[in-house]
């Protein structure tokens, strides 16, 4: 029971931080400072655990798995927001709503690929990270091809 309550508190903390970022519309803490601080906290936690007699490998694996869980929790809220956006932006907004939908699709792709890369690195599954990286490299071309295709097909219909 204590473990489940701890997981819920961890989840709510990550959700709250991501929601705070979304509400503000930009980063609450600058990523160039936040990411080194998070890495420093993880290294410090591993060092504290190792100094208490726990093996270095076990401590590292445990802390990295907790970090991977945090990344998965942080990817959940943008994914749900993208789903709500796909549901809400209907055809009543005109023909150019496609570009907003394409942007939402890009957010889904970006969140998915970043989650795959960082979770794969943190739980030491390099195939997950490699596929995520390949997908991350490919997704701008996909979004650009879709927008280009829509622009020229719509332009063709408008000319006719």
């Amino acid at each position, binding site marked *: 029971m204590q473990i489940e309550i701890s*997981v819920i508190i961890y989840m709510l903390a990550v959700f709250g931080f991501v929601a705070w970022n979304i509400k503000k519309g930009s980063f609450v803490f600058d990523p160039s400072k936040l990411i080194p601080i998070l890495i420093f906290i993880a290294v410090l936690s591993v060092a504290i655990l190792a100094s208490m007699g*726990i093996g270095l490998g076990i401590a590292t694996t*445990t802390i990295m798995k907790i970090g991977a869980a945090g990344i998965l929790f942080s990817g959940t809220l943008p994914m749900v927001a993208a789903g709500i956006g796909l549901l809400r932006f209907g055809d009543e907004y005109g023909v150019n709503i496609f570009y907003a939908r394409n942007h939402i*699709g890009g957010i*889904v792709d970006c969140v998915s690929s970043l*989650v795959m890369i960082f979770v794969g690195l943190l*739980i030491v599954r390099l195939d997950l990270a490699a596929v995520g990286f390949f997908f991350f490299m490919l997704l701008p071309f996909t979004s650009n091809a*879709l927008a*280009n*295709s829509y622009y020229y097909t719509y332009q063709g219909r408008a000319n006719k």
Partner: protein
Amino acid sequence: MIDLSFLNAFADSAFFWSALIFSVACAFTGLAAVRLSLKGEAVTSLMAISTFTTVAGVSLFLISLPELFNVGFARDTAIALLVVGSIGTIIFARLFRTGK
């Protein structure tokens, strides 16, 4: 000495529940994409199906992990969905653009 069993159990439980909740969020987005693909025109449907293949691939990759459900064959399906889905989207978008 700190209780390592609690920390290990917390890490396993947190990873399991986070991956499960992320998969549920992917399923919700996938359902929204399927709804969009059924009501939109051709390029919108292509975009929505591309989004659906992405979230399906990520969910399948997550359930193939040994920390979760350890479904081995889901990994190959996920790789095929993610790679071929993106390339197929680009190819079909080019085809739609040329109009042939």
